[in-house]
């Protein structure tokens, strides 16, 4: 039976390779027929900023990689509304459409999961 797996992405994309490697794991989870969702929270929202160019710092572009999530079967993309407000970001700043969740909605998302990882 498929498990409900939530990837909680809360790291900024270029200060370390952490975000990129977590996205690779989320992509692979998608092709393994699990019910995968992703929640961008805190500095993880920076992963979604438009107009990134990872080539400028010698690597891949995290925002482009995130665009592949639906190709890999991961279509439930959520983002923390209060985080966006704190960081001064809106949907217009992002390169992908996400569903904004308040804290109550994030709690119920967490409570629906079998597994949560980062």
């Amino acid at each position, binding site marked *: 039976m498929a498990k409900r797996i939530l990837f909680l992405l809360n790291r900024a994309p270029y200060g370390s*390779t952490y975000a990129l*490697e977590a996205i690779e794991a989320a992509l*692979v989870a998608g092709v393994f027929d699990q019910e995968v969702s992703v929640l961008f929270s805190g500095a993880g929202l920076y992963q979604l900023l438009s107009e990134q160019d990872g080539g400028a710092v010698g690597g891949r572009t995290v925002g482009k990689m995130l665009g592949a999530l639906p190709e890999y079967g991961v279509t439930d993309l959520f983002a923390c509304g209060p985080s966006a407000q704190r960081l001064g970001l809106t949907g217009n700043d992002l390169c992908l459409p996400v569903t904004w969740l308040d804290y109550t909605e994030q709690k119920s998302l967490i409570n629906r999961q*079998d*597994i949560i*990882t980062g």
Partner: protein
Amino acid sequence: MVISIAVHGAPYASAGSRTALRFAASALGLGHRIHRVFFHHDGVLAAAGQGVAPQDEEDLHAGWVRLGESHGVELAICIANALKRGMLDEAERDRYEKDAATAHPAFTVVGLGQLIEAMTESDRFVTFAA
């Protein structure tokens, strides 16, 4: 209960590798089964077979090897993360024509699919962050 563990931090640089090792030992002691320890991100450096710990500090690499060998726990290092950090087993050393295999043979080099399989085959999945 079947438990799998992810270790995200490098030994010493992050406390997580040691915390995970202690947690795994306690879980085994309480009768649980550890299906797989998946070393992800800098966590793969736990496989470094050439490290030398000072005599008065815990040897984390040796601790993991002992856990793997005495309890049959699978120690899996993520291939994508391991290669770029210089952790190669004999097969990868040969493939990329490098001088030496750097990962201890108690660790197996695996794809990210094994991370997802650990999640699907375990009752609990515990992530030890960096």
